[in-house]
């Protein structure tokens, strides 16, 4: 059975995910996305993974959400509140969402996953740190290179070559 904290967290996560997609203003949408990501961090805490939860908070809530907020503020004001979408496509999308939820949910409820519970003690997070520096150290180096190169790539993409005469399509 689920407890009250789990219920509150799932309502917060799912509700703010819907709000992030449906609210008119993109700024409030990105703040709602921030709430969703914090809810996921709460789930990580419930799953006895405090290291991943803190990583999620610092990377997702701290940097990605702020990056999205700044990008939203760079965009023209009308576009932030602009919400054009096809009505029929929207109903088809809601139908697809419900079908996915019901279909995969039924499969999971029907499978043997329902009886899986655990009483074993959780993994010590010191073990993860040790793993990172010993067994996974090549992967850690490759990940650092990927992060650095992608940040450099993003900077190169977003840089304006010429402030007075930038390229336009129109």
């Amino acid at each position, binding site marked *: 059975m*689920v407890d009250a904290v789990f219920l509150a967290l799932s309502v917060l996560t799912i509700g703010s995910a819907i709000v992030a997609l449906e609210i008119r203003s993109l700024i409030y*949408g990105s703040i709602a996305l921030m709430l*969703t990501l914090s809810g996921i961090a709460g789930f990580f805490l419930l799953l006895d*993974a405090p290291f991943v939860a803190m*990583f999620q908070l610092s990377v997702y809530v701290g940097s990605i959400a702020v990056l999205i907020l700044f990008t939203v503020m760079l965009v023209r004001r009308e576009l932030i509140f602009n919400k054009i979408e096809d009505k029929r*496509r929207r109903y088809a999308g809601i139908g697809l969402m419900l079908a996915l939820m019901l279909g995969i949910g039924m499969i999971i409820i029907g499978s043997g996953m329902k009886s899986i519970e655990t009483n074993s003690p*959780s993994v010590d997070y010191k073990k993860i740190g040790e793993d990172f520096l010993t067994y996974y150290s090549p992967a850690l180096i490759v990940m650092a290179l990927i992060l650095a190169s992608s*940040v450099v790539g*993003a900077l190169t993409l977003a840089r304006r070559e010429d402030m007075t005469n930038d*390229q336009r399509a129109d």
Partner: protein
Amino acid sequence: MTNGLIDFVLVSVALLAIGIYGLSVKRNAIRMLFGVEMIINSANLNLVAFARFIPNSQGQTLALFSIAIAAAEVAVGLALVIVAYRMYKNIDIEDFRSLKG
């Protein structure tokens, strides 16, 4: 633990379905990135949940790598949105006509 594995997996499925809805219906490029974020987060939740119930530390390690790669992906995606906005003065996906290749 009072919560079973199935509870976490069901929350993850709901988040995945909402993310797919956002990707398929929205035409705003930044909102589509929101949908991608939700899908990645549901995958991470699954990883950590299964790692807790095995129990095993490798799922958490993989989740950490996945979070870091997602950060790189968002940085590049937002840079692309900014470039497209500068070229077309719009962030509507259907206006990005000449990106067809």
